């Protein structure tokens, strides 16, 4: 932490951690309802726990994105934030929005529109927060006069996220058209602009953790962004299967979704080779675990497991089954939960006091238990989903009878989810067990014995036109 204002990131991360923990409580509750019977049927039915589970995910990941951006932007632009006060005001509005939304869901307030359940006042608060946030970031970059490619990609990703939230504010009397635009927000977030954010975070972490050459990494960042959008924008088509839109979306979805793994495999290779070729290895090996882990898990969860069911002739049978839950869990975790934890783990040694630079034993347990748990959960959903597709969709056995036959997979889900939850609990504990640092500190001074990859002054070029200077 070289700049005092970077300490705002701590409070964003802290909120993200609390919400992450709550998300798992509601996730476990939802999973246990699959086993049934449900003693809370009339008090806290599945639809409520599931809404809270998915909304907490979105809110905590976005909180993490904001915290990570505040942290990164100072490092990249070598400047204090434009306004610390604005950052705290934004956090306050954001936290109130998140908490009241969740409490509201418990009492049945919500739009009943999947993943966009936030009531209108909350949607407006989200837009206001995004605007404050973008303003603060842009002004920070302007006042510093230093604008790197990584920042450019990050900023574009964040700004596009805000713009793509706007279709969610529209109302349509035709439910099919409402579905059509709902995916502009959901799909183009998670399979488009959020991947820009993930890519930018990856670039930042890889440059610092591996000492890899910024020019080379940023060049490949552009390639990844290009590949993400070629496949991602038209890949929206795979959400338009069987929902009442023209038939040409089927072949389009099949083709462009098949391309989506290309960008994700590219991202994994990008991470792997930069570590292999990088000059010096940063002592924060735990952060390296999370960084490489995120790239690999994204390739597996988003890329391969997505591809497993995006061909129309396969999706005809798997559409609307637990196969989707398999892909959803692994993809979201790998791409977004893990990248946020990567930035947090990278920042923690200087963001908090009395910490080793290379991560604690608790930190490693948190990593590996989460890996094992999420892999097991993915397999549980996959096996449950395959059973469901075969019995319900192919053989024509009734939904409820099939759900009874695949109970064992739900038991497997709860066991593996519990392992995952222990991993998350350890991560949260590890985060909170040291007090935050409020004064800037130089990494090299704090950890004099560690070999850090190059001095800070050699990071990139100091020109505002960095992007133009590559070759």
């Amino acid at each position: 932490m070289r700049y005092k204002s970077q300490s705002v990131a701590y409070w964003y991360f802290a909120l993200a951690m609390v919400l992450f923990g709550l998300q798992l409580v509601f996730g476990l509750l939802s999973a246990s309802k699959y086993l049934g019977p449900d003693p809370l049927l009339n008090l806290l039915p599945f639809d409520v726990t599931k809404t809270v589970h998915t909304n907490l995910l979105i809110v905590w990941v976005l909180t993490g994105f904001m915290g990570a951006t505040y942290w990164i932007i100072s490092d990249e632009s070598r400047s204090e934030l434009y306004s610390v006060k604005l950052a705290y005001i934004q956090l306050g509005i954001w936290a109130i929005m998140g908490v009241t939304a969740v409490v509201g869901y418990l009492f049945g307030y919500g739009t009943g529109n999947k993943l966009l359940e936030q009531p209108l006042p909350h949607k407006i608060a989200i837009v206001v927060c995004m605007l404050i946030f973008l303003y603060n970031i842009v002004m920070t970059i302007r006042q510093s006069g230093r604008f790197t490619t990584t920042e450019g990609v990050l900023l574009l990703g964040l700004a596009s996220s805000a713009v793509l939230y706007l279709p969610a504010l529209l109302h349509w009397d035709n439910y099919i058209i409402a579905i059509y635009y709902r995916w502009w927000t959901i799909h183009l977030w998670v399979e488009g602009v959020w991947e820009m954010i993930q890519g930018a975070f990856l670039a930042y972490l890889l440059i610092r953790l591996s000492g890899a050459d910024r020019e080379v990494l940023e060049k490949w960042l552009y390639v990844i962004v290009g590949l993400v959008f070629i496949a991602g924008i038209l890949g929206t088509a795979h959400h338009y299967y069987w929902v009442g839109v023209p038939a040409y979306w089927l072949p389009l979805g099949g083709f462009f979704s098949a391309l989506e793994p290309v960008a994700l495999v590219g991202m994994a290779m990008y991470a792997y080779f930069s570590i292999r070729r990088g000059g010096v290895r940063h002592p924060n090996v735990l952060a390296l675990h999370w960084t490489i882990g995120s790239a690999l898990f994204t390739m597996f969860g988003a890329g391969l497991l997505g591809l497993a069911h995006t061909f129309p002739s396969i999706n005809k049978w798997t559409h609307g089954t637990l196969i989707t839950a398999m892909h959803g869990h692994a993809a979201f975790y790998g791409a977004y939960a893990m990248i946020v934890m990567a930035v947090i783990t990278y920042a923690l040694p200087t963001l908090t006091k009395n910490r080793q630079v290379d991560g604690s034993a608790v930190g490693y347990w948190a990593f590996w238990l989460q890996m094992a748990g999420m892999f097991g959960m993915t397999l549980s959903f996959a096996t449950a989903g395959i059973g469901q597709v075969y019995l319900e969709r192919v053989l024509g056995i009734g939904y409820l009878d099939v759900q009874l036959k695949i109970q064992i997979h739900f038991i497997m889900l709860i066991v593996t989810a519990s392992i995952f939850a222990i991993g998350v609990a350890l991560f949260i504990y590890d985060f909170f067990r040291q007090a935050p640092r409020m004064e800037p500190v130089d990494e090299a001074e704090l950890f004099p014995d560690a070999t850090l990859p190059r001095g800070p002054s050699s990071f990139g070029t100091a020109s505002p036109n960095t992007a133009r200077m590559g070759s």
Partner: protein
Amino acid sequence: MNKRQTRLFAIASTAIATLLFLVLTVDSHRQFPTLTNSENITEEVIRGQQVWHNYNCINCHTILGEGAYYAPDLTKITQLRGTPYLTAFMKDPSQFYDEQKHRRLMPNLGMSDQEISDVIVFMDWVSKVDNQGWPPRPILVTGAALPGSDAGAAQQQADAGARPVAADNSPIALGEALFRNAIPTCQACHSMTPGVNLAGPSLAGLGAFFEQVKASGEYTGKATTEEEFIRESIVEPSAWLHPGAMYSAGGTSFMPPTYGDDLTEEQIDQLVAYLMSFK
């Protein structure tokens, strides 16, 4: 490639993909009215859509395959089940399903009559949207397209129907149990899934079928309503012969003529109520 070229690649590919996407969006809007029968989006459909949202239905069920995966898909439900059944179900789901048996039950949402009728109209509009013929086979809530394939022999004996029944249950639920354990069992020859014809024809959609038979002028029985038609078919199977050489010969139906004597009047009422709950 140098950095400038890769940046150009990123910008150009994004721009081309965006442009193509926007063009297709305009074209999709051109086709939406036909695909979604938008002229049928009445006030009731719009109110029904609001009911669908207000009760957060999508976070248990799926519709058009979208939603949560905790409860059955409802895309074509109004084509499988009639309005009276769906109304009775939404008024009290526990009349038709049992939480102990399926370990899952829809809570009683306390919906008003108006809300129930609106949401059924909405779901009926959804069921008629042109969605490339999905699902490829009907998605059932319970039972099986091939009767009996959902449970072993011992289970069939132990609990027939979607729930264990008591005398005070809805006649539809009692009829469903009877359909499975009458002697000989109805489901040995009949499926409730559209298009699945076994030794006997599928019994889904008898109401519409009867209208069609009546209109064809070939109907030889005495029934004037769907209810009478179903009752007549149970008690006197040869009153009118279902078309097809595999179902009858020499003017006699292959269906056992014994049900009229073996079942009580009340049991026949229950069977009729059950069969009428399918559209």
